[in-house]
C-alpha cells in the first residue's frame, strides 16, 4: 500500500481502465433489468440495448468510456474528475433504473414487476471498486469516504422519493410494501438478538478474561473450549442446542415461563453468545495483559493510585483492543443471526429462507441486503471508533497489512 503515486507518475491507471471496460462489458453483455407481468411468472431478462435501443445504450456507455479515458493519463486533476464522475454515476444508478423501467414496462399491466438484472449489480459493484481505488490513489481520508457514502445514500433516497411512481413496480419494493410491518419487526428482532448476544458476551467475556489472567490452566482450557465452539458450524450448533433446551423447557417450570423453548430465541441467543465469546475473550484478554509493565511502572512512579492507573492508563490503552473485539463479534453475529431464523428466532433471515423456499428471489434480497448493509455499517462504524481511540495510529487509516 505504500507503493503508489510518487513511484510511478506516467502510465495509465490500469485498474480504473480495467474496471470501466468490465462495466461496459456487463452493460452490453448481460441483462440490466428483468420484467415480469406479475409475481408468479418468472421475469424476462432484458439487456440495456434491448430496452433503450442502440442509441440509448451508446449514450449510457459514454460516461464509462469517459471514465476509462480519464484514467488513461493519471494526472491528479483527471483522477479527481474521474472520482467525481464515478460518484455521479453511482448516485444516478436508481434514476437510470427508473428510466429503464418506464421504457420497458407496459402501463396497461398494473401488476407488472421490475427486477434487477446482473448488469445492475455488476455496475454497482464495479463503480464501488472504482471509488475505493481512486480514494486510495488520491490519498483521501476516511472523512471523504463517509462523505461519498452519504452522498450516494442521499441521492438514492431523493431519487426514490421524486421518482416513486416510476420505481413503484420494483419487485424489491413490492415485496417490502406488502410486509413493511413484518420487515420492521424483523429488523428489530435481528438487532435485539445481535445486541443481546454481543452485550452478554462483553460482560461474560470480560469476566472470563479476568479469571483467565489468574490461572494459566484456566487460560489454556478456556481457549481450547472456545476454539472448539467457534469451529462447530452454526447450523449444527443450533441443532445441538435444540434437544437440551426442549428438555429444559419441558421439565423446568421457570425456564418455560421465561419463554425458553427448543425452537425460538433461546437456542439462537445461546449459540450467538457461544460464537461471540471467543473473539471477545481473546481481545479482552490481550487488552488486559497487553499494557506494558513499563507503562504501569511509570504511572505508579508518578504517584497514581490504583484507581487512577486503571481509569487513566489501563482503560484508554485497552479500549481500542476491546472495541476491535466488539467489532469482530458484532459483524459475525449479524450474519449468524440470519441462520437463527431456521430455528424460529425471527429476524431478517426469515425473509431469506422464506424467499428461498418460494423461489421468490426478491424476498431473499429483502432479507439479505439489509443484513449486508448492517454488517458493513457495523464494521465501518466500530472500526472507525476503535481507530479514533487508538493512541498509536490515529492518523493512518486502512488497517490492511
Amino acid at each position, binding site marked *: *500500500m505504500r507503493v503508489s503515486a510518487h513511484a510511478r507518475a506516467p502510465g495509465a491507471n490500469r*485498474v480504473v481502465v480495467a474496471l470501466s471496460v468490465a462495466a461496459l462489458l456487463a452493460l452490453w453483455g448481460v441483462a440490466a433489468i428483468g420484467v415480469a407481468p406479475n409475481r408468479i411468472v418468472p421475469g424476462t431478462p432484458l439487456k440495456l440495448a434491448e430496452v433503450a435501443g442502440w442509441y440509448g445504450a451508446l449514450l449510457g456507455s459514454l460516461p464509462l468510456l469517459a471514465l476509462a479515458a480519464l484514467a488513461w493519463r493519471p494526472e491528479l486533476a483527471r483522477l479527481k474528475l474521474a472520482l467525481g464522475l464515478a460518484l455521479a454515476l453511482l448516485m444516478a444508478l436508481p434514476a437510470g433504473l427508473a428510466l429503464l423501467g418506464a421504457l420497458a414496462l407496459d402501463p396497461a399491466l398494473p401488476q407488472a414487476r421490475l427486477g434487477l438484472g446482473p448488469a445492475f449489480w455488476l455496475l454497482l459493484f464495479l463503480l464501488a471498486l472504482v471509488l475505493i481505488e481512486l480514494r486510495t490513489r488520491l490519498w483521501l481520508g476516511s472523512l471523504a469516504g463517509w462523505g461519498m457514502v452519504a452522498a450516494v445514500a442521499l441521492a438514492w433516497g431523493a431519487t426514490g422519493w421524486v421518482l416513486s411512481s416510476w420505481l413503484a413496480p420494483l419487485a424489491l419494493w413490492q415485496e417490502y410494501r406488502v410486509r413493511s410491518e413484518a420487515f420492521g419487526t424483523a429488523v428489530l428482532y435481528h438487532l435485539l438478538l445481535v445486541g443481546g448476544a454481543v452485550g452478554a458476551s462483553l460482560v461474560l467475556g470480560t469476566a472470563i478474561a479476568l479469571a483467565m489472567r489468574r490461572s494459566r490452566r484456566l487460560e489454556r482450557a478456556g481457549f481450547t473450549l472456545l476454539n472448539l465452539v467457534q469451529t462447530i458450524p452454526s447450523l449444527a450448533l443450533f441443532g*445441538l442446542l435444540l434437544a437440551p433446551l426442549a428438555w429444559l423447557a419441558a421439565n423446568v417450570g421457570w425456564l418455560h415461563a421465561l419463554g425458553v423453548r427448543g425452537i425460538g430465541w433461546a437456542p439462537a441467543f445461546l449459540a450467538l453468545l457461544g460464537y461471540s465469546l471467543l473473539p471477545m475473550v481473546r481481545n479482552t484478554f490481550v487488552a488486559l495483559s497487553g499494557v506494558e509493565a513499563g507503562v504501569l511502572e511509570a504511572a505508579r512512579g508518578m504517584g497514581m493510585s490504583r484507581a487512577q492507573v486503571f481509569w487513566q492508563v489501563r482503560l484508554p490503552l485497552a479500549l481500542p483492543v476491546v472495541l476491535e473485539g466488539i467489532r469482530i463479534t458484532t459483524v459475525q453475529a449479524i450474519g449468524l443471526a440470519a441462520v437463527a431464523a431456521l430455528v424460529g428466532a425471527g429476524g431478517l433471515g426469515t425473509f431469506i429462507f422464506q424467499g*428461498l423456499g418460494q423461489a421468490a428471489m426478491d424476498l431473499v434480497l429483502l432479507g439479505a441486503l439489509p*443484513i449486508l448493509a448492517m454488517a*458493513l455499517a457495523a464494521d465501518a462504524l466500530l472500526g472507525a471508533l476503535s481507530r479514533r481511540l487508538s493512541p498509536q495510529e490515529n492518523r493512518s487509516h486502512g488497517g490492511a*497489512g
Partner: protein
Amino acid sequence: MTSEVPPDVGRLMRWRAPLVWLSLLMLLAAGMAWLTPLFHWVEPGARQVIYPHGDFLVLLGRHLLVVSVASLLAVLLGVGAAVLVTRPAGRDFLPLVAQFASMGQTFPPVAVLALAVPVLGFGTWPIIVALLLYGLLPIVRNTLAGLEGLEAGVMEAARGMGMSASQRLLQVELPLAAPVILAGIRTSVTVNIATAALGATVGASNLGAPIISGIVNGNTAYVLQGAVLIGLLALCVDSAFERLQRGLGHPGR
C-alpha cells in the same frame, strides 16, 4: 517433547486429535442405526427416528465433495491472484485487491449464499461457486499478508544468489509465507463446511439436510444426527489443519 518416544509413534501421537475425531465421525456415519434406542428416547413420539433420505456416509461424501472442490479451486485462484498482484506486472491492482479482500470478509456467508442463488440458480454448482467466491477472501488476504510480510533482507539475499523471479517465488517466497497462507486456507475451509450445510436450504443433499428436515418436521432426532456429524467433520478438519500448521512452524494468525 517426544524425545522418549520412538519417532513414528511420536508422529502418530501428534495426529491423535484429528484421528480421534475422524474415527468418531466414520463410526457414527456408518453406524447411526445402532443408536436407534437412544434416538427413540430423544424423540419418543416419532415412528421414524433415523434420517431416512440417504445414507449418512453418502451425505458425508457429498458434503466433503462440495467443500473440497470449492476449497481446492479457492486455493488455486486465491494464491494465484495474490501472487499475480505482488509481481511487478500486476502491482497496480494490489491496493484494490487487498482492500477488497479484507472488506469482503465483512459479508456474512449466509447473505453471499442467498445472493448467489438468484444469480446462479439452485443446485450443487451454485453452492460450489458461492463457497468458492467467499472462500477466496481469507486466502487472498493471508497470501498477501504472507508475501508482503517477508523481510527485505531475505529477498535481497535470494536475488544476490542469482535466483530467477520464478525460483525466488517457488523456493523462497511461498515456502516462507506458507504458515500464513495455511492459516487462511484453514479459515476458508472451516467457513465452507458451515456454509455448505446451509446449502441444504437451497436443495443440496448433504449433512445439513437432516437438520433442516428435522426442524421442518419437528423431529429432534434427525436434527441431532446431522448436527453431531457436521460438528465432528468440522472438528476433524480443523484439528488436522492445526497439526499441519504446527508442522510448518508457528501458526500465523
